[in-house]
């Protein structure tokens, strides 16, 4: 019996001996800590877990874990991870990339991994800047971002990652923030538990090239005033005192903010239904200022994953090497 089978794993068991080389204060440290904790909670041995990354600051992630890892080429992590998962569906396969890697260089691979619904956990570390190459604007940078490549300020509309994922056909779309250390673990566990492609956008602060890009969202003391924490079946309340509510405007198909005390009845408060795709799109469109940013699971619709839909049994025997040899 493998010793890992009998030992209760701790977060430290998922750390590697590599010196972590992100800038001091980088949000990636916060995510790394949460991921190690979640992996320990999930309890699978490090040799049953694979992290596949592309290129970028975030893509250094596999070096810092004791799991299997693959630092691939720019934007192609989702494609490589698809191969890993199909070759051995027993593995837990995670994909890590930044906003450049997932939304620009690898935008097509992200799209197809999501619509294929391969059982991968895709973690987008969104800092809305190209950090590794020293601060050029990225596909998720807000309009007006001044950077070495946009000295006059960017003019393009940023990609809304959650809307992109929903539009690509993702059946699981969630969002968290790096420093919300008590919220993010639950999001990642839900993503892991979902069988199919799980897309998680993690708002991550780049302290050097885009510090404060997400304002108060990932500030522990202010976050509850500018975010709404989604719980399936629960009324959508937010604010430090839970005194603000979201109401769904059926005519416009959008959420509106209301003071709870001003509502005729608390029954007017919208209740989160994570299986409702229209509501998920409406949630994904909510941005600061004007709306709280939704964190948690925006959308989760059970659906056969790629292996199941293709009629494979999902066990290694179906992909037997001998069978392959016979075929060749």
């Amino acid at each position: 019996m493998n010793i890992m089978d009998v030992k209760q794993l701790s977060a430290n068991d998922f750390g590697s001996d590599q010196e972590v080389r992100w800038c001091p204060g980088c949000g990636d440290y916060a995510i790394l800590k949460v991921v190690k904790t979640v992996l320990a909670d999930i309890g699978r041995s490090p040799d049953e877990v694979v992290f596949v990354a592309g290129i970028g600051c975030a893509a250094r992630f596999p070096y810092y874990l004791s799991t299997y890892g693959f630092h691939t080429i720019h934007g192609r992590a989702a494609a490589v991870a698809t191969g890993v998962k199909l070759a051995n569906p027993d593995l837990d396969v995670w994909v890590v990339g930044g906003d450049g890697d997932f939304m620009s260089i690898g935008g097509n691979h992200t799209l197809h991994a999501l619509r294929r619904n391969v059982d991968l956990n895709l973690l987008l570390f969104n800092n809305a800047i190209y950090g590794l190459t020293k601060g050029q604007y990225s596909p998720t940078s807000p309009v007006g971002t001044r950077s070495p490549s946009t000295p006059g300020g960017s003019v393009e509309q940023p990609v809304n990652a959650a809307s992109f994922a929903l539009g690509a056909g993702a059946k699981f779309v969630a969002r968290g923030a790096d420093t919300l250390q008590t919220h993010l673990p639950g999001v990642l566990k839900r993503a892991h538990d979902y069988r199919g492609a799980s897309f998680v956008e993690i708002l991550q602060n780049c302290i050097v090239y885009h510090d404060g890009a997400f304002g108060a969202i990932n500030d522990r003391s202010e976050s509850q005033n500018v975010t709404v924490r989604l719980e399936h079946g629960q009324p959508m309340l937010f604010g430090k005192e839970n005194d603000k509510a979201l109401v769904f405007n059926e005519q416009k198909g959008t959420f509106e903010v209301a003071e709870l005390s001003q509502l005729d009845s608390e029954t007017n408060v919208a209740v989160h239904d994570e299986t409702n795709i229209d509501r998920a799109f409406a949630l994904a469109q909510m941005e600061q200022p004007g709306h709280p940013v939704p964190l948690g699971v925006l959308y989760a619709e059970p659906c056969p994953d790629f292996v199941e839909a293709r009629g494979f049994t999902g066990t290694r025997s179906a992909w037997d090497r001998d069978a392959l040899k016979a075929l060749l």
Partner: protein
Amino acid sequence: MTYAVTEACINCKFTDCVEVCPVDCFYEGENMLVIHPDECIDCGVCEPECPEEAIIADTEPGAEKWVALNQKYSEIWPNITERKDPPADAQDWSGKRDKMDYISPAPASA
């Protein structure tokens, strides 16, 4: 992995570290700060901020006793999230060594 505050902080408590911590994991005693080892994300941003060089990584030799001390007091002292003025006599204690005799186990007053 965590960073830890050492005795060099005692009676100085400049709180520059508190200002930069992205996860607000500093806790405040009457005359010293500590880092909660379970909350620290090991990002290292606080370490160069300290004018007393009181913050060390747990990979440094002899760090165990400081991590243990930080663990102990972070569980009983209040969380500090914003910079504040140092004690009036902070400069008198700056650079002094072997300050453990002066540590106060009391939490910071509100």
